Each structure stands twice: as C-alpha cells, then as structure tokens.
C-alpha cells in the first residue's frame, strides 16, 4: 500500500530507535505524552515501546473522544434513542461505552431502540432522506477531525430542506485538553506527572494546522511534534522530541509534513466557524469542566440542533468511584494501577470508557500489551 507501507518498515524503525538510544542522556528519564488516541493505538498495536530504551517512556493522553465523553451525554443519547420516533445514527465506537446503571447503546438497541451504526455523516443524511417519517438524530462526537464532516452534513441537510434531521453535538477541541493536562498534572494524593513533550495529533492537525500549538509550547515551555499515525512517524517524532529536550528547545515541529501544513484546512475551518460556536463550559470525563472547550450549533442552525428540538437536559453522572479513567486520561496513572483493571473491568465488561474504546489506554494495554506485566519469553 503506497504511502502506508513505507512508514511501517521495521528495519528502518530499529535504526532510528538505535539513534534514540544513543542520544538519550543516560542520566535522565524522558516522558512524552501522545495526546491522540490514534497514536495510543499505534504504539500498542505495533509494540513501539519495545524499541525504545528504558529511560524513554510514553504516557497516554486523553485524545480519545470516546473516552472523554461524559456518562451524562451517553445517557442523553440513549434517552433520545428510546423515543419511538427517533432513529439515532452513531459511529460504531460508541455502541459499548458504559452509561449510567450499566446501560449502553448496544443494549438499548437490543431492547428495541432504533440505533443505526454509520460510517459517515453522509449515511445519516441518506437515512433521513429515505425515511422521512423518522426523526434522524446524528450522535456527533470527536475532535477537530470529525467536526467538519458534521458541518458538511448540516449544510447538506439545509440544502435538501430536511425537516427530520438533527445533530446531537458533542464535538470538543484539542488545545483546551492539552492545556488542562499541562495546567494541573497533580495527583489527588499528591505527586505530579512530568511530561517532557507532546506528540501532537495527526489528523486534527490537518484541519487546525500547527498554529494552535504555538502558544501552548511557549507558555508551558514544552516541545510539541505533530506526527503521523504510522509507526515510523511515531518513532521519528519521539527522536525529534528527544532532541528538542536535549537542546533545551520548546518549539512546535511538524513531522507529518506530507499532510499537515501550518495553516491547516481553511475550508474545513470556515465550515466549522459558520455552524458552531464555543460553549462556555463542557464536562469532560476525567478532566472535569473545561471552559471554552466544546462546540454547539449556532442559533442560525437551531432547527438542526437535537438538544433544542428534544429539550435535552443533561444530568451529570459520576463514574464508578474505583474507576481510574480520570487519572489515566491525564497520564497520572497507568492502566495496571487501576484496581478494576483486569478484574471487574475488561473489554467484555468495561467499567469506564478507557476500556471500551480501542484507543483508550486501558483497552490498548489489555488487548496488546498486558503480557508485559511479567517477563516475556526471549524472542
């Protein structure tokens, strides 16, 4: 596969890893956070940590929009889906995310709710067109990568004069989440996590460009390297971060130059600005209330807003008190440090969303990496 396979070359990766090992100062420890769930998944799935020297470690960040969606909003989606006239369209990733009282969308579907898994917002539009008697609600989640597709769907719905299509908007923004981690990396019982630098999100950055990270890098004096999703991209980015730390720099660098530009996708940004505005505050699972961190539909598009049409009133719901998703999302704890990991909380019976989403730190560790908890057989 062109433009994919070249970036999966294990031999080249081991060579770059050897350079990392050589350039990592032996008297210090480096901790880098990959913000984006796609990177978490790539690191686990390819076993990238096996290539790194012992003093270079990765800490998983909260960039998995399924993981940061608060329970209350999934409860809302389930309530909407249980309305007999509603057809709820959702990405498959959300089907097993635990809501209140052990509910989830998959169980709601089994109980008779009309829930349809879609690959694209265009599928939801198509359903609204072909089933005019149904109230089609699209469960919109995601960072800046999935927001423009929602915007295009809204524009199409307007153009086609669809009266039966609305969006339940849970889109969130990346920079406020990075800021939240840098602002308060303190454990409840004391102690801090030190993050020496960030691997910046790949596809979010194709939309936003690299500019939004400049102020963060400067203010917190931490380097950011925007990296692609293929394993070689990640390894290269780790080397670039290491070099910045060694040289005392905190710049924004772009490893994903083949797709990411400084300005980003201007058309997509324009669409987002037209349809959406910032909420004053929004609850994030694990990160708490963050100001100016999420989007809602503008008044001009109120007729396409599910929250307004169905008078959605979100009731905040707390996580299981033993669930450590919150600290894990902040990179303060590792999955194995959560008391529920592997016992009450497994992919079959997830207690928190870090375990449900394949990009969640817990799911990634369970599915690909939990064998590292003890000695592996030498290869």
């Amino acid at each position: 596969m062109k433009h994919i396979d070249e970036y999966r070359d294990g031999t080249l990766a081991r060579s770059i890893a050897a350079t990392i090992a050589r350039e990592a100062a032996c008297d210090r420890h480096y901790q880098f956070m990959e913000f984006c769930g796609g990177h978490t998944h790539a690191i686990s799935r390819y076993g990238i940590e096996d290539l790194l020297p012992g003093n270079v470690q990765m800490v998983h960040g909260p960039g998995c929009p399924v993981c940061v969606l608060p329970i209350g909003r999934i409860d809302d989606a389930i309530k909407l889906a249980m309305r007999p006239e509603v057809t709820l369209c959702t990405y498959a990733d959300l089907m097993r995310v635990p809501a209140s009282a052990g509910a989830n969308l998959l169980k709601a579907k089994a109980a008779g709710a009309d829930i349809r898994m879609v690959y694209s917002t265009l599928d939801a539009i198509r359903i609204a067109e072909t089933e005019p008697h149904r109230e089609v609600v699209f469960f919109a989640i995601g960072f800046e990568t999935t927001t423009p597709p929602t915007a295009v769907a809204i524009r199409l719905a307007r153009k086609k004069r669809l009266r039966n299509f609305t969006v339940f908007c849970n889109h969130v923004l990346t920079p406020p989440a990075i800021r939240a981690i840098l602002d308060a990396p303190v454990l409840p019982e004391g102690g801090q996590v030190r993050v020496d630098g960030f691997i910046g999100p790949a596809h979010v950055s194709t939309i936003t460009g690299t500019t939004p990270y400049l102020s963060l890098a400067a203010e917190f004096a931490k380097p950011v390297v925007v990296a692609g999703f293929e394993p070689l991209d990640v390894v290269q980015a780790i080397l670039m971060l290491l070099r910045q730390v060694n040289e005392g720099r905190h710049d924004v660098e772009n490893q994903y130059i083949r797709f990411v530009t400084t300005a980003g996708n201007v058309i997509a940004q324009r669409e987002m600005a037209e349809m959406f505005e910032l909420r004053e505050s929004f609850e994030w699972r694990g990160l708490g209330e963050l100001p100016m961190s999420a989007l809602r539909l503008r008044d001009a598009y109120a007729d396409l807003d599910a929250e307004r049409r169905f008078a959605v009133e979100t009731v905040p719901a707390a996580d299981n008190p033993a669930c450590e998703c919150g600290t894990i999302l902040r990179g303060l704890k590792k999955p194995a440090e959560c008391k529920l990991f592997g016992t009450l909380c497994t992919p079959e019976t997830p207690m928190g969303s870090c375990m449900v989403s394949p990009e969640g730190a817990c799911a990634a560790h369970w599915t690909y990496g939990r064998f590292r908890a003890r000695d592996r057989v030498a290869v």
Partner: protein
Amino acid sequence: MCLAIPILVEELLPDDMARVTLNGVSKVVSIALLEDVRLGDYLLIHVGYALARLDPEEAERTIAMMREAAVPGLADMAESRP
C-alpha cells in the same frame, strides 16, 4: 477518532464526491472539504470525507529525514523482512 489512511483518487464524481481506491478496494467519499482535487491525488480519508491532500515532495522529504536519522550500517546488519 483518528483512523484515516491515504488513498488514491480514481474518479471524480458529481456533488463533491470521488471514488478512491486502495489495492482494488474502492469507496465513494466526499471531497467537499478540499479544493481542486485531481485524479491521481492521494487523499487522507476519515469517516467518509477527504480531509487533506498528500504532498508527494514532502512525503519524499519525510522518508529522507527518517533515513538520515537511522544509524548508518545498522540497516544492513538487521534481518531483512519481506
């Protein structure tokens, strides 16, 4: 939310759509978020939409950067894999 892959544009279709193909598997996706898409472009596709276009020169530069980062000689010593 970040699963996306670069894929070749095989055919431009009406209403801002395009057919893209990877190893004989093809899909129809929206190109509403990009301008000036041409046949032969490689697009980054995510949830049915093209988000960005591959810059082939920058792609070559990326591979070159990676090779520079590699320890000289080590690549030859390592086992070659198919």
